[in-house]
C-alpha cells in the first residue's frame, strides 16, 4: 500500500508538472523521477495525450445568440423587447417587496401604467445621455415653474428641497406616449432624480409604490389628479425619502 500511495502522490506531481504549476525545484524533481521510473513516464505520456485530446477535439460550444442580450436586459443595460423570464422577474419582485415592506405596498400596475413607466424610464435614460439632463437649469423654483407655464397646459408643482439635500437642478419636457409632460430634475449627491408629473385626472390619490425598471428605482404616487413618477439610480431609501419630502413640503416654502 505504501508503494501505491507514493505512486499516486508522484502522479499528482506529474499532473501539476504538465499544468505548469510546479516551482523550478519540484519540476526538476519530477523530471528526474520520470527519467528513472518507466511507469511514471507512461503516466506522463497519457496525461499529455489527454490534454492534447481535450484541446484539439472537445467541441467548444458558444453560448446561444440571445444570451448576451438577455443578460444585458436583466441588469437593465438595455430595454427588453420581450419580458425577462418570469423567474428573474419574480426574483426582482421578491427583492423589491422586501425593500418596500412596511413603508409602501407593491402594486401590480395595469398595462397603461406599465407603458407610462417605460416612457418615464426612456426619458430618464435619454436625459442622462444628453449633454444636459434639463432644458432649463435653475435651482430657483420661481424660474423653473414659469418656464413650464409658457410651454405646457399645466405647470407642475415645484418645491424647494435644497435644504434637505435634494437641490433643484432644473426642468425639462418629456414626451410620454404622445403627451408632453413636465419633468423636474433634482440632485442628490452624485445622483439625479427625474420627477415627472403625468396628468391622471381620473385616478384616486395613492401613496408612493416602488418598482424597478431598467436598473432604476421608481416611485409612483398620485395626488390631486396628477401621477408623479420619481426615477433615479439613487437607492430606494434615498428615493423614498425624496418622495416623502416632495409630498409633504408645501410649494410656498
Amino acid at each position, binding site marked *: 500500500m505504501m508503494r*501505491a*500511495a*507514493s505512486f*499516486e*502522490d508522484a*502522479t*499528482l*506531481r506529474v*499532473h*501539476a508538472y504538465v*499544468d505548469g*504549476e*510546479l*516551482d*523550478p525545484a*519540484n519540476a526538476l524533481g519530477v523530471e528526474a523521477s520520470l527519467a528513472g521510473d518507466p*511507469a511514471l513516464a*507512461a*503516466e506522463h*505520456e*497519457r*496525461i499529455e*495525450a*489527454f*490534454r*492534447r*485530446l*481535450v*484541446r484539439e*477535439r*472537445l*467541441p*467548444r*460550444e*458558444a*453560448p*446561444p445568440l440571445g*444570451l*448576451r442580450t*438577455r*443578460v*444585458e436586459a*436583466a*441588469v*437593465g*443595460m438595455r430595454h427588453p423587447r420581450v419580458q*425577462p*423570464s418570469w*423567474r*428573474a422577474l419574480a*426574483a*426582482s419582485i421578491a427583492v423589491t417587496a422586501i425593500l418596500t415592506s412596511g413603508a409602501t405596498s407593491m402594486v401590480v400596475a395595469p398595462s397603461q401604467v406599465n407603458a407610462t413607466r417605460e416612457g418615464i424610464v426612456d426619458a430618464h435614460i435619454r436625459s442622462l445621455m444628453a449633454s444636459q439632463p434639463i432644458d432649463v437649469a435653475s435651482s430657483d423654483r420661481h424660474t423653473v415653474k414659469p418656464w413650464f407655464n409658457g410651454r405646457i397646459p399645466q405647470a407642475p408643482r415645484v418645491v424647494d428641497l435644497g435644504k434637505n439635500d435634494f437641490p433643484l437642478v432644473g426642468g425639462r419636457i418629456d414626451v410620454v406616449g404622445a403627451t408632453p409632460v413636465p419633468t423636474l430634475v433634482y440632485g442628490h449627491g*452624485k445622483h439625479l432624480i427625474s420627477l415627472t408629473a403625468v396628468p391622471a385626472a381620473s385616478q384616486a390619490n395613492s401613496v408612493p409604490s416602488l418598482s424597478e425598471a431598467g*436598473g432604476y428605482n421608481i416611485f409612483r404616487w398620485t395626488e390631486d389628479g396628477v401621477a408623479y413618477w420619481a426615477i433615479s*439610480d439613487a437607492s430606494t431609501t434615498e428615493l423614498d425619502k425624496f418622495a416623502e419630502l416632495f409630498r409633504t413640503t408645501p410649494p410656498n416654502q
Partner: protein
Amino acid sequence: MSIANLQDQNKLIRAGNRSGGRLQILSTETKKPDDRMADGENDHQRFARLVLPHLDDAYSLARWITANRADAEDVVQDASLRAFRAIANVAEGNSRAWVLTIVRNTAYTWLRKNRPSALVVVDDLEAVESAQVAAADLDRETPETALIAKADAASLEAAIAELPPTYRETLILRDVQGLGYREISQVTGVPIGTVMSRLARGRTRIMKTIARKSS
C-alpha cells in the same frame, strides 16, 4: 504520503505564480463608493467591463454543471444579476475567477432548487468521492496512450459528463477554461491539494473510460 497529506501540496506550487497576484478580487477588500464615483464609471459600465467578457466561460461552466443548455442560460442570467448587485463593491483583479465563482454557486443553488435529484450527489459528495475512489481508482490497470490519442469528440464528451460533479467542474475549469490551481481552489472553495487530487482522478477516470470503450 497519504491522500490526506495532499492538503499540504500548496507548498509544491510556485510561490506567487501567475495567478497569485490577481486574486484580490476574491478577498473581502472592497472599493469605497467614492473611488467608484471618481472613476466616472457607473455600475453598468463596470458590469460591461468586468462581467460581460466572461459570458462564454460562464455559459460553458454552467452547461457542464447543469448538463442542460436551457438551464445553463437561466443560471447565467441569474448569476449575472447577482454579479451586478455586487458590482459596486468588487475590487479590481481577477474578474473571471470572480464571475465563475458566482456562476458555480448559482448553478448548484439552481440544481438544489429545481432538480433535487441531483442534490444527493452534490451534498454527499465527499462521502461519494471516497467510496468511488476505493471502487474505481484502485483499479491499477492503465489505459494505452494510443487509445487515448485516437478517442473521438463524442466519447470524450460523454466521459466528462459521466464524472462526479466535483471532478467534472475541476477538470472543466482547468482543461477547458485554463484556470490555474490557485484560481480553481478559489472558485470551488477547496484547498489546492483537493483541486490536485480531483483533477488527477477526473483525468484518470476519463482516460480509463475512453480506453475501455474504444478497445
